[in-house]
């Protein structure tokens, strides 16, 4: 695969024109692809938690709210136009079926927060593959705007 760009946890990277943005093994985390099709500018952010409550906010990309906001800001500074930007997301699984309720379902809370924050920022959500119990690797092809989700024991899915 050419021009593969890997995004770690709590990380974000952009590519323009072409390139394959990849983030591996999303469990309860969510990978959010933001894309301006006209100028072919794509970003992939790997968020881990729904809300940024850190003092100082040193890690904006770790959280759905600040991660989406900062990524959009960055894209706009590179020429993207808000009304053209669309989103595709994957992740938000529950890896372990646990008996104790106190842990909550971080995956589900992440999905809800991503939905809410995309809506708040006026971004259309085109496609998603979220929830369930499987880990996902998300690939996003910046040239075509297509996403691909790879999971264990499940056929590849194009989003």
């Amino acid at each position, binding site marked *: 695969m050419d021009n593969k760009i890997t995004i*770690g*946890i*709590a*990380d974000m990277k952009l590519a323009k024109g072409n390139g394959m943005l990849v983030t*591996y*093994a*999303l*469990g*309860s*985390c969510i990978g959010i692809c933001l894309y301006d099709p006209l100028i072919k500018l794509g970003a992939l952010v790997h968020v*881990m*938690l729904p809300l940024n*409550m*850190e003092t100082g906010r040193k*890690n904006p990309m*770790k959280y759905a709210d600040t991660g989406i906001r900062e990524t959009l800001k960055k894209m706009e500074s590179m020429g993207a136009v808000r009304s053209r930007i669309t989103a595709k997301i994957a992740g938000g*699984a529950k*890896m*372990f*079926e*646990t*008996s*104790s309720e*106190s*842990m909550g379902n*971080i995956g589900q809370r992440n999905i809800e927060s991503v939905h809410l924050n995309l809506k708040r920022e006026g971004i259309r959500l085109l496609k998603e593959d979220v929830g369930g*119990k*499987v*880990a*996902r*690797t998300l690939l996003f092809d910046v040239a075509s705007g297509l996403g691909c989700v790879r999971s*264990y*024991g499940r056929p590849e899915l194009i989003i």
Partner: protein
Amino acid sequence: MEIKNYDELNSLQLDTLREVGSIGTGNAATALSTMLGREVRITMPEVRIMEYNEAIEWIGGPEEITAGVLVKLRGQFNGIMLSVQQLDFVNLVLDHILERKIMEYSELMELENSLLIETGNILISTFIGALSDLAGLDIRLTVPAFTVDMQGAILAVPMAEYGGQSNYIMTIGGNFICNEKEVPCRLLLSPDVRSLNVLLRKLGVSDGQ
């Protein structure tokens, strides 16, 4: 002085945690040895404090499929303990008890899964039992949960649970040696920061003196 993040631990505290790891892993090895009917020894245990992405590289890459047994710790000590069972370890257990080996995780059936869950549960319970005796802490364990999936996502469970507090994950543990072969034990204890402070205080090293 209370620590706020794992990376603030001083060398005495790290040594103490390594000792906890040694005793915990040693007890787990004894339990495994009884179960398998074979001698199981351990290597020098390590305490590692790693940033998320570093931890995933350390365990062998995000997409590698593994079996994971997860138990949550409650009571005077809160945390998550994981037994990450890579193929070498799975085959060590399956071979000795069921006299079979697998090439891929997809070959695991109900019986094999139950055996792996129970093995993980025994390792974790003996580790925590030793920790509990040593520090005089009352620790309760939840019923073990099990999955077979990408290890990056399995490791991300304790990270997400304590992600609001820290950018680091702490792991304690060594490797098992059985039949002259070294098998990674990958018992990962991730305490929340408050519980880590409780543990250090109980062991008399909270002020780093």
